[in-house]
């Protein structure tokens, strides 16, 4: 297949050796497109409904199938947000891959594409993980602040957003396709800036080349590890703990009621008091 040369951004998102992963992603989307095309042809419909419905499912399934054997990849479904499909997660990089067919023709520019309203909770949540736009609209809270203090506060918010990316972000696997072909494929970072209209703002985009025909392009068997993140993890809170026992001891079975609380010290009685 075409040799993928990792960009610095790709290394930041996917580790130092992202070629296999990105190759698998490319194979997955082309495979999904092929599946959808087969369904479209067999269905014999004049509309593209069969293509679209099949592709919707196949994009998730193929991404999972093509990447699940890559070391460092986990397959998970969101917990508290409804999602029919499993997603590809890179644990070390804290990145989740989310496929989005942003256009159904060659003409629509990616920058102009919108998510169809109403935007699902899943999309709202995932795309908020890449939010790096802070609102500079002043509120009553800002009334008492000087210009310098305001600047410092906004700078701090921007710093927080930058740092938060390391705790989890979404990478969009974006593509445009129809039964006429797969017109565009790449990965990027996007933010949902208008939830009501589904407007998306891209902060990064990188094209993915198609897999070469006749190669092992459709084989999911890839097992090279993704590069590890920084190894400066602090010592664990439980590292010093030894296994402890509870001081359990057998009792004469069924002899007496259990002793579940410490026995109270005996109260001195008249007869036990020392004589003066």
């Amino acid at each position, binding site marked *: 297949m075409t040799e993928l040369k990792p960009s610095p951004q790709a290394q930041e998102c996917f580790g130092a050796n992202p070629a296999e992963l990105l190759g698998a992603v490319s194979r997955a989307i082309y495979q999904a497109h092929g599946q959808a095309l087969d369904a479209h042809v067999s269905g014999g419909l004049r509309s593209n409904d069969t293509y679209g419905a099949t592709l919707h499912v196949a994009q998730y399934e193929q991404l999972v199938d093509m990447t699940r054997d890559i070391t460092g990849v986990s397959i998970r479904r*969101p*917990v508290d947000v409804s999602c029919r499909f499993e997603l590809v997660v890179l644990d070390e990089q804290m990145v989740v891959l989310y496929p989005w067919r942003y256009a159904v023709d060659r003409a629509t520019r990616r920058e102009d594409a919108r998510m169809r309203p109403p935007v699902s909770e899943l999309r709202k949540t995932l795309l908020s993980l890449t939010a790096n736009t802070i609102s500079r609209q002043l509120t009553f809270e800002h009334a008492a602040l000087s210009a310098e203090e305001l600047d410092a506060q906004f700078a701090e918010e921007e710093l927080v957003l930058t740092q938060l990316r390391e705790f989890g972000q979404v990478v969009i696997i974006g593509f445009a396709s129809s039964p006429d072909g797969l017109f565009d494929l790449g990965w990027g970072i996007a933010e949902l800036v208008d939830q009501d209209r589904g407007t998306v703002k891209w902060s990064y985009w990188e094209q993915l080349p198609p897999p070469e025909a006749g190669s092992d392009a459709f084989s999911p068997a890839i097992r090279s590890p993704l590069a590890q993140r920084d190894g400066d993890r602090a010592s664990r*809170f439980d590292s010093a703990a030894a296994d402890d026992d509870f001081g359990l001891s057998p009792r004469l079975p069924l002899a007496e009621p259990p002793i579940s609380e410490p026995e109270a010290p005996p109260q001195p009685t008249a007869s036990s008091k020392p004589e003066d």
Partner: protein
Amino acid sequence: MTDLPPANVRRASQPQASTGSVLVSVAAAFDPDRLTQARRLAGLTKRAVAEQLGVSAVAVGQWEAGTHPPRPDHIGVLAEVLDVPPSFLAAGRPYARLDDSAAHFRSLRHTPAHQRAKAIAFAEQVWELVYALERRVQLPPVDLPGFSAGEVSKGAVGGDPLQAAQTLRRHWRLGTEPIPRMVRVMEAHGIIVTLVPFAGNATATVDAFSTSHLPRPIVVLTPDRANDVYRHRFTAAHELAHLLLHGDAVPGDLLQEKEADAFAAEFLTPGAVIRPQLPTRMDLKALERLGQQWGVSVDSLVYRCREVGTVSDPAYRRAYQRLAQLRNLGLFQAEPVDKYPGEVPALITRAYALAEEHGLTMPALAQELSYRLPRLRLLLGQETADIRPQLRLV
């Protein structure tokens, strides 16, 4: 100590078992409360039970109220519908009744009433099992200031959650260092902690709860939240606060919930010790490392940063909301509880293992408690799913 069981623990005469007329003898010794308990464990309403038996809901209500006992043939069907042995419905076993209002639910607003009822019935069963094991194995005595015989006296640790946390740390000789094993330290002081999917797929709606109204305090943690060891530890400490401070449970009381959170934060990360270790400006990676050392989440340390004023309110809100969002998504959890042995309850399992070494068998214990074996395995933490062999048709 007293030879008498606590007030809310009942005993009655043992029912006479007869191989020929088990149902007749169970009907004769019928215990209305056991029917209520079994129905709650099954998650059924009286009407649902009545429909399956072909009787009126009023009849089931009368059985549970004790005004009219069910006929022997009804006992058989009831046992089948509620998935308990017929003997479960008879009196004669120690039974600790827990009122609906006697438990603190972490997610009260999200927990449907029938799931709360099921959870309470589960806690009753946990106590029954512990009582049966305690007759054979000496467990750690309960060592919780102010707690005795299912009651918590006010004033033992004061009403302030921060002082209470500091007092309990001193009382349990934990110093001011990180607590390496939160769940284990609770068990070592006689508190029963469980982590089983007692309500199947619905367990998630219950989250966690605790009660100090039984002869031993019980904390029920749920496995769906166990994919995040830091949240799990905080929840355990939160429930510990309820046991210590809120003997008079006011379910869903926001003040009590806030107090429990404040206690948990202070208990896990004593303010006087953690504050000097916080970065002087927002540094989430530094907070992550500090969190790993103390066994707490980054967001709890972000909260600490806000307390000492090293981050502004907007930055705090931004970080807190995003971290909460990430936690709810559950996609990036890399610290599941099962990687931390000290956070997985072990007291009941080990107590049973010791009792087994001295002759107790699973069937004997199941018979004594009138539980089915899968139920007993679940309570012992030995079964998280149906392990019966599956028939496959090919």
